[in-house]
């Protein structure tokens, strides 16, 4: 369904001196800096697959999605979605894709939700009968009935997102791109949204490409994940695989009475690493380790032998941690080590 071959996108960023002089100067002469947002990636996604597309902020996720939707033209490489080159036949591509872009609403701000759907029906040329069936189904699954008469601007975040999702799937698109569909929502809404996505996939075979920072979303919806970092795909495989490889990752944050001259205790050197400290919270020491090498309890007790621990929290492994970890399998680990010791 989605075929991507050697896809790359380079941005030219004009550098400009500040002030009026800079503005005038830039009229005649510009210095450019090239930023490689996406560096030759390959993707092959079958119809009705549900894929998590993850990576840290600025890794190239949204640039890729923009190229897949036809909003952005690639610098080089090939893209085909359902046999169509999106940036060449944008309109044709648009009629069988759906999208939810995070906080940006797709619906029409001032008019009631039902009227928005009515307009979308005409924009996407959905046959009346199909439209009625689909809407009835969505209303039931997403509990939209009480929202249909309300203008979008008056909806809460969770209500809006439910309506957004319905709008994205309304024309029964072959591919749906979901960018952070659960961000900022409470657990009950998240659950409803996840089950809706799964249901759509099961019933219509919709291909779903999901970007999210929420591990739970990925685990419940996707069979496969693709991790992108710094413009390159660094992992493409099943979620089971990544879980067995990295699911044993743990992070514990320590707050020490005195952390100025902190070094990792000798006993832990073989089994754990210290993560770089965060600017805003220099007192917090974060230690990452694998539960196969050492148990959490053991690590904590060793730490407490060496330092006065004021407080500690055991964190879930975040996407960022895993991405960093995969990337760090290469050379990054050594660099980190040196900084610490």
């Amino acid at each position, binding site marked *: 369904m989605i075929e991507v071959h050697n896809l790359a996108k380079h*941005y*030219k960023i004009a550098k400009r001196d500040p002030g009026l002089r800079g503005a005038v100067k830039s009229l005649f002469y510009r210095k450019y800096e090239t930023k490689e947002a996406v560096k030759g990636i390959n993707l092959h996604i079958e119809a009705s697959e549900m894929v998590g597309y993850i990576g840290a902020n600025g890794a190239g996720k949204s*640039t890729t999605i*923009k190229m897949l*939707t*036809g*909003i*952005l*033209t690639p610098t080089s490489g090939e893209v085909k979605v359902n046999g169509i080159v999106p*940036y060449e036949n*944008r*309109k*044709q591509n*648009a*009629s069988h*894709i759906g*999208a939810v*872009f995070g906080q*940006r609403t*797709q619906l*029409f701000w*001032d*008019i009631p939700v039902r*009227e928005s759907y*009515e*307009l979308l029906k*005409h*924009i*996407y*040329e959905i046959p009346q009968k199909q439209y009625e069936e689909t809407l009835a189904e969505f209303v039931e699954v997403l509990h939209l009935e009480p929202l249909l008469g309300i203008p979008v601007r008056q909806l809460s975040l969770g209500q809006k997102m439910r309506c957004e999702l319905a709008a994205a799937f309304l024309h029964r698109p072959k591919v749906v791109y979901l960018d952070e569909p659960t961000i900022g929502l409470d657990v009950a809404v998240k659950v409803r949204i996840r089950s809706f996505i799964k249901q759509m996939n099961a019933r219509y075979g919709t291909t779903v490409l999901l970007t999210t920072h929420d591990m739970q979303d990925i685990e419940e919806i996707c069979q496969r994940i693709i991790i992108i970092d710094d413009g390159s795909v660094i992992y493409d495989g099943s979620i089971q695989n990544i879980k067995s490889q990295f699911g044993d990752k743990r992070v514990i944050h320590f707050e020490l009475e005195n952390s100025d001259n902190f070094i990792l205790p000798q006993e832990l050197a073989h089994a754990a690493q210290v993560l770089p400290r965060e600017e805003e919270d220099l007192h917090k020491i974060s230690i990452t380790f694998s539960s196969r090498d050492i148990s959490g309890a053991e690590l904590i007790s060793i730490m407490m032998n060496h330092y006065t621990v004021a407080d500690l929290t055991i964190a879930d492994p975040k996407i960022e941690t895993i991405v960093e970890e995969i990337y760090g399998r290469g050379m990054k680990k050594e660099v980190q080590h040196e900084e610490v010791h």
Partner: protein
Amino acid sequence: MIRYIKLYYLFCKQNLKVMMEYRMDFLLGVLSVMLQQFAGIFFVKIVFDHIHELNGWTFYEILFIYGIAATGRSIHHIFFDNLWTLGWQYIRPGKFDRLLIRPINPLFHFIADRLQQDGFGQLFIGIIVLGTAMPHLDISWGFMEYVILIIMIIASGFIFVAVNLFFATLSFWMVDSLPIVWTIFNLSDFARYPLTIYHKGIRHLLTWIIPYGFTAFYPAAYFIKGSGFENLALLTPVAAIVSCALAYLFWNRGLKAFTSTGS
């Protein structure tokens, strides 16, 4: 094409519904624009209380020019007002992407997104002014004259549209070109009066470069005997078509630049 007309009708219907929801604002908007236009007309009236003609043009001839400009501009104001917002409401907050993933022409979608109620004030004033001025012109108003007048007014409206579209398109490269659009739009102030009162340079600028002369003075001159511009006046529809075509080509280039750089 039929599909787009139908879609536009649907967009309009929604926009009108929203408008009716805020009835007070609708009235306030219409009233305010009428007042604004009226201030300009009153100014001309005051001046003509003290003189009989301006550079050979009578009060009603000036009023007629004014009326064509106001009616023409109302077309732009009612239906194409969204052009002002391209940079700060669409490109900067990323809302323009939404238009690009819809299976319809993005310019159409962008324009149809808004119907500006306040423009109706402009339309009313324009019609009132035209109605006042027309009986005083030295011409007999037959069917053909009305047809030509309507064509001229539509052409005038589309010249406003073309100029704004052209300069709004710059937003694709510079995020928000509103200051430029606004400045250029202010040039249309010249067009309220007979171009003959200005320096030659200004006249050429407003005829051949930014064709605001065709939004009021030239079309009006068609109906004024002995104005000396009857032939140039006939170019008004041509000027409208050419400038719209140029602006649309430029828009497409801008769109292309936008899809290759993003924002």
